């Protein structure tokens, strides 16, 4: 078998963010489960606690436990890294980066979040590291998609209502919205993906991106405004 590619671009200080994600009632099926347990002592193997059992087996070097972990977590990690990187090949490399980093950090894992949530964060950081490592591309400006105003502060072009049945064809809407998100500059697209799609908190997104919480809020609002503008003609039936 050829030697697998191996990358270690993940920033050490971004590797282990164990702040528990806020439990949310609206989690969708493709999400990882929210962390449920607070910080706990070193887990003991117990049939009643599969997670602690798995962790104990991992720490004991059980190959079957590693295979189980990788097999269970890889689909979710590929989904998030693909969205961030928009490249299946790079997404796979980022998942590989994430597992390598996780294996190394496992002795320090304190079970303050679920194992899956912890690795998921590492994978986000691995994908963001790859995104940062790409050659710099001139970012397009959002200005043309932001609302315009006249001198007295009124909207230059009044906003028209969206019909209540706009977007009834769900699959087409999803494609339109994904295409619109892809048109955003990376610095805005990543904020939308982390906050609105992956449902990280503002603090968590700020930490992952290495920017202030204020910058996350501003970028998120502007990105949503831009997406609204990109969808507006189609939602009002003015564009094919």
């Amino acid at each position, binding site marked *: 078998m050829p030697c697998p590619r191996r990358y270690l671009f993940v920033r050490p200080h971004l590797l282990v963010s164990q702040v528990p994600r806020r439990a949310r009632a609206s989690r969708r099926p493709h999400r990882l489960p929210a962390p449920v347990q607070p910080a706990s002592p070193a887990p003991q193997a117990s049939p009643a606690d599969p997670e602690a059992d798995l962790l104990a087996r991992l720490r004991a070097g059980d190959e079957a436990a590693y295979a189980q972990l990788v097999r269970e977590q890889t689909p979710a990690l590929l989904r998030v890294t693909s969205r961030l990187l928009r490249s299946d090949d790079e997404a796979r490399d980022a998942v590989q980066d994430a597992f*390598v980093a996780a294996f190394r950090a496992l002795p320090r894992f304190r079970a303050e979040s679920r194992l899956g949530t912890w690795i998921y964060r590492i994978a986000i950081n691995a994908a963001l590291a790859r995104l940062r490592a790409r050659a710099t591309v001139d970012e397009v400006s959002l200005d043309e998609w932001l609302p315009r105003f006249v001198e007295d502060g009124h909207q230059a072009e009044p906003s028209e209502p969206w019909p209540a049945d706009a977007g009834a064809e769900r699959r087409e*809407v999803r494609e339109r919205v994904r295409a619109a998100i892809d048109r955003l500059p990376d610095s805005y697209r990543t904020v939308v993906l982390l906050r609105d799609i992956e449902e990280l908190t503002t603090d968590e997104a700020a930490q992952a991106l290495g920017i202030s919480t204020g910058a996350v809020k501003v970028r998120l609002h502007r990105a949503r*405004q831009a997406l609204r503008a990109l969808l507006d003609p189609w939602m009002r039936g003015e564009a094919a």
Partner: protein
Amino acid sequence: MTALPTCREVLEFLGDYDAGELDPMRTAAFERHLEVCASCRNYLVSYRVTIELEKDAFADPGLSEPPEELIAAILSIRRTA
């Protein structure tokens, strides 16, 4: 009473308003503006719909079976590390 904000102010801080992060005085002023400005009401509704559409955009069921060659590569790294 806080002065009525302009459309520019309302749309600039719409995210904070929608997240309930404005103070009560400012929230009340925003709501007075929204009562009299159909354009900003329309904008607010479409802004909220946009967020819902974003959240739904990736809800298609995706990959369920992980690629075997990737699993093998990761486990190979693990064994040789």
